């Protein structure tokens, strides 16, 4: 079932904080990640969809039905909370069976369904355990099973991995994605972790100051960010102020840079984006954009090495697998992106 938000606006009473003019469409079986810095409005967006807050303007449609003002309990949405919000006095199976109890499923059937759901999330044998005796990852799985057991129309995930350690987080990303695909359910995943969003989502929506600034596939978002702030938020980036001087070059504070063909008029102020992994170490006479300098910061990150190469009055952030000394780099014109200033 699909989920659609049309011109949704909401502000918290007595403040100017909220979300403004949100338009979103999440298709059946699609996972949309919503990312943004703290206070960007992503959690408010989830609250509006879940019904914990009511939109002042616009409407929210679930499978074509207007649910903007429908009470939370009638929305049929599975919600996984950041803290999981498992009932501490109920065993794992009782937590999962709770929505079935509410729906008046008979006791033996609800136990069977709950145990089945726990088995699907890999928790067979943990049915009688109280939440506080389970690990963070196991609690997360119980929360997922509980949110999915009653076959909700859509799934809402509120930073579900933020409380887990790095290793477990990676496993749970795959697990959530597997379950989401298995249930083929429209899912909104709120996160501040851009890596999590890029690795899990079909599409990613970026929020800034209560507004959606870009919705795109992870690849498109990374390669063609709409604004400087999106480029800065999603992944590492070299962002320089520049002026267009021709159809295939820009003038930067440290020299001229050859670009691919673009549509900006000469004299336009632009932001130039080059991803660190597109900075090639060393250069040959044929390279269009060649720079020499000295490393002022060098970070070894295991598989890769990230360095700052000082050139004239600027710094180039590069990323490489090379471990030797670096004093020259080159940038291929097709790796140079121009964004509005």
């Amino acid at each position, binding site marked *: 079932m699909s989920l659609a938000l049309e011109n949704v606006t909401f502000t918290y009473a007595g403040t100017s904080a909220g979300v403004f003019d949100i338009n979103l469409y999440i298709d059946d079986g699609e996972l949309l990640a919503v990312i943004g810095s703290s206070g960007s409005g992503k959690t408010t967006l989830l609250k509006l969809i879940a019904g914990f807050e009511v939109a002042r303007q616009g409407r929210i449609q679930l499978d074509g039905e207007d649910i903007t003002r429908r009470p939370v309990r009638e929305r049929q949405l599975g919600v996984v909370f950041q803290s999981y919000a498992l009932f501490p006095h109920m065993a794992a199976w009782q937590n999962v069976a709770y*929505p079935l109890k509410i729906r008046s499923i008979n006791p033996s059937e609800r136990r069977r369904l709950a145990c089945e759901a726990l088995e699907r999330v890999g928790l067979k044998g943990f049915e009688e355990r109280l939440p506080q005796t389970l690990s963070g990852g196991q609690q997360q799985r119980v929360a997922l099973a509980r949110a999915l057991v009653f076959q909700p129309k859509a799934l809402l995930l509120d930073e579900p991995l933020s409380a887990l350690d790095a290793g477990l987080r990676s496993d749970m990303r795959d697990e959530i994605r597997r379950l989401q695909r298995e249930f083929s359910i429209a899912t909104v995943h709120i996160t501040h972790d851009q890596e999590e969003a890029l690795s899990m989502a079909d599409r990613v929506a970026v929020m800034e100051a209560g507004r959606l600034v870009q919705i795109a596939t992870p690849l498109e978002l990374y390669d063609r960010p709409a604004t400087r702030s999106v480029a800065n938020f999603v992944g590492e980036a070299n962002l320089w102020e520049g002026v267009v001087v021709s159809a295939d070059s820009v003038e930067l504070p440290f020299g001229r840079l050859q670009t691919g063909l673009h549509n900006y008029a000469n004299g336009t102020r632009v932001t130039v984006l080059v991803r660190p992994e597109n900075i090639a170490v060393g250069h040959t006479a044929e390279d269009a954009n060649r720079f020499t300098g000295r490393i002022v910061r060098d970070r070894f990150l295991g598989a890769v090495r990230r360095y700052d190469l000082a050139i004239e009055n600027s710094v180039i952030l590069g990323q490489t697998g090379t471990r030797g000394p670096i004093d020259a780099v080159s940038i291929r014109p097709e790796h140079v992106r121009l964004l509005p200033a």
Partner: protein
Amino acid sequence: MAVVTGIYLIYLFIPIILLFVGSFGETWTNTLLPTGITDAWYLELWEDGSFRRAFMVSLKVVAATCTFGTLLAVPLAYALYRSASRGVMLAARIVFLLPIAAPPLVLAFGFILIFSTDALPWLGSIWLLIAGHVVLTLPYLLQTLVADMRHLRLEELELAAESLGATFRERFLDVVVPLLRHSLGSGLIMVAALSIGEFQLSNLISGFLYRPYPVVLLQAFYGSTGFACAATVILLGLALLAAAGGALAARSASKYRKNAP
């Protein structure tokens, strides 16, 4: 630290031990310890109808105070916890401070003024005594419950239940009440202990037929020391019994929902 704790414990337990010793002593006049051993004081106490009646009255008052206290405090604490209104929070603070602002004696005089009129002639009834005990103990129970609600982050658990389809009633009975069982238990122990030992208010508003044990106990001190000690030991036992009863009541109430769903 250990020495100070030790001294404090001795200071705390010596009167209790002396009461116990005194209750089995034949005579105790101007000596450090009583002379002779007897169980006569307990037998005399058992045969005294007024003490037996007072004992039963106290048990009834404690049971009723715990019951009505629970029925009032749980929804009231919940309302206080959920309310974002400054006015309600101020009212809550006043209620919490009530036992300090209006001591039992003040409350008792108010009760006498109001309930000795022809319109409300309930002074001396057991129900008024229970009402008085509820008013006195409610703030303590409320404070315990509200603090626990904050600690449990009930709001998020309720949102979770609501998103799963639960109505207000289902959320309250399936999530709120069972989660409060521990604080309710400890709160009721406090209520029972306060109610059983309450003297000031009870002494002024209880009628001849419904005098609780502490009020009757006062009479014992006009008689022999052994009898007074035995009567006090019984009060101590009664307080322990009431506290245990309060804890058991809270535990059994929680069991009602423990097997859910």
